[in-house]
C-alpha cells in the first residue's frame, strides 16, 4: 500500500524533501496517506512546519515513528536527509 520512498528524490533538482506517511486515523487528520514536505534537519523541525493540530496529534506518546522503515526508540533523534521517509504509526487495532 505504501511503497518505500525512493532514496533519490525524483522531484525538481533543488527541492530537498522528506516524505511523511500517515497510518490509520492519522491519515484522516492529515487529509491523505502521505505528503512531501521540505527537508528539515530534525523530526521536530519537520513537525514545527505542519498545521499545529496535526503536529500535536503526531507528537502523541502512543504514536510511534519509523524512518526509512526502521522503528525509532523513544530517545532517537535522527538527522534527516533528502528523500527520507518518516512514518507515523498510531496504536495498531488488534482484535
Amino acid at each position, binding site marked *: 500500500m505504501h*511503497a*518505500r520512498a525512493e532514496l533519490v528524490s525524483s522531484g525538481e533538482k533543488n527541492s530537498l524533501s522528506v516524505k511523511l506517511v500517515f*497510518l490509520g*486515523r492519522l491519515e484522516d487528520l492529515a487529509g491523505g496517506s502521505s505528503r512531501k514536505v521540505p527537508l528539515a534537519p530534525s523530526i521536530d523541525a519537520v513537525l514545527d512546519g505542519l498545521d499545529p493540530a496535526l503536529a500535536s496529534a503526531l507528537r502523541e506518546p502512543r504514536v510511534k515513528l*519509523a524512518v526509512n522503515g526502521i522503528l525509532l526508540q523513544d530517545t532517537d533523534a535522527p538527522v534527516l536527509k533528502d528523500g527520507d521517509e518518516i512514518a507515523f504509526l498510531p496504536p*495498531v487495532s*488488534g482484535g
Partner: protein
Amino acid sequence: MTPSGSDVRLLTDPFDPAHELGAFTRVHPEAGGVVSFLGQVRAGDEVEALELQHYEPLTLPAMKDLAERVRKRWELEGLLVIHRSGVMEPGDPIVLVAAAARHRRDAFAAADYAMDHLKSESWFWKREKADGEWRWIEPRAQDFEDIARWG
C-alpha cells in the same frame, strides 16, 4: 518458504483458506496434527466492510519475525501465516494461521500464540464501515490480556 520452512504471506487480494490449508497439509505428511485458525469478517453485525491498512517496510518483516519466534518456541514441521490487507466484506477471510507438528499440543500452542501476537503486535490499522461511515478501530484491552498469558 523460508529456509526454516515457514510460509508467511501478506496478501492484498482475497484467498481461499480451504485451498491453502489443503496445500499446507499435503506438504507436511510427517506431521501427525495440523491446527489452524481462520479469522473472517463476521457476518450479521452492522459492519458492511472492513479495511486493513499495512505499512510495507514494517508489516511483513514483523510477521516473519513472529513466525521465527514461534518456530523456536515449539517443535513444528511447518507454519503457515497468511494475512489480508485492503478492503474486505462480511464472510471474507482475514487471517489464516496453521501449525503442523508431530505432537498435538505443540500445534495447538503454536497456532494460539501466533494468533495472540499477530492480533496485538502486527502493524495493521483497521477501520470498519457501518451505515455508510468508515470508523477507525482502537486497540482492545482483551489483546493485552491474551498476550499476557504467554509470560
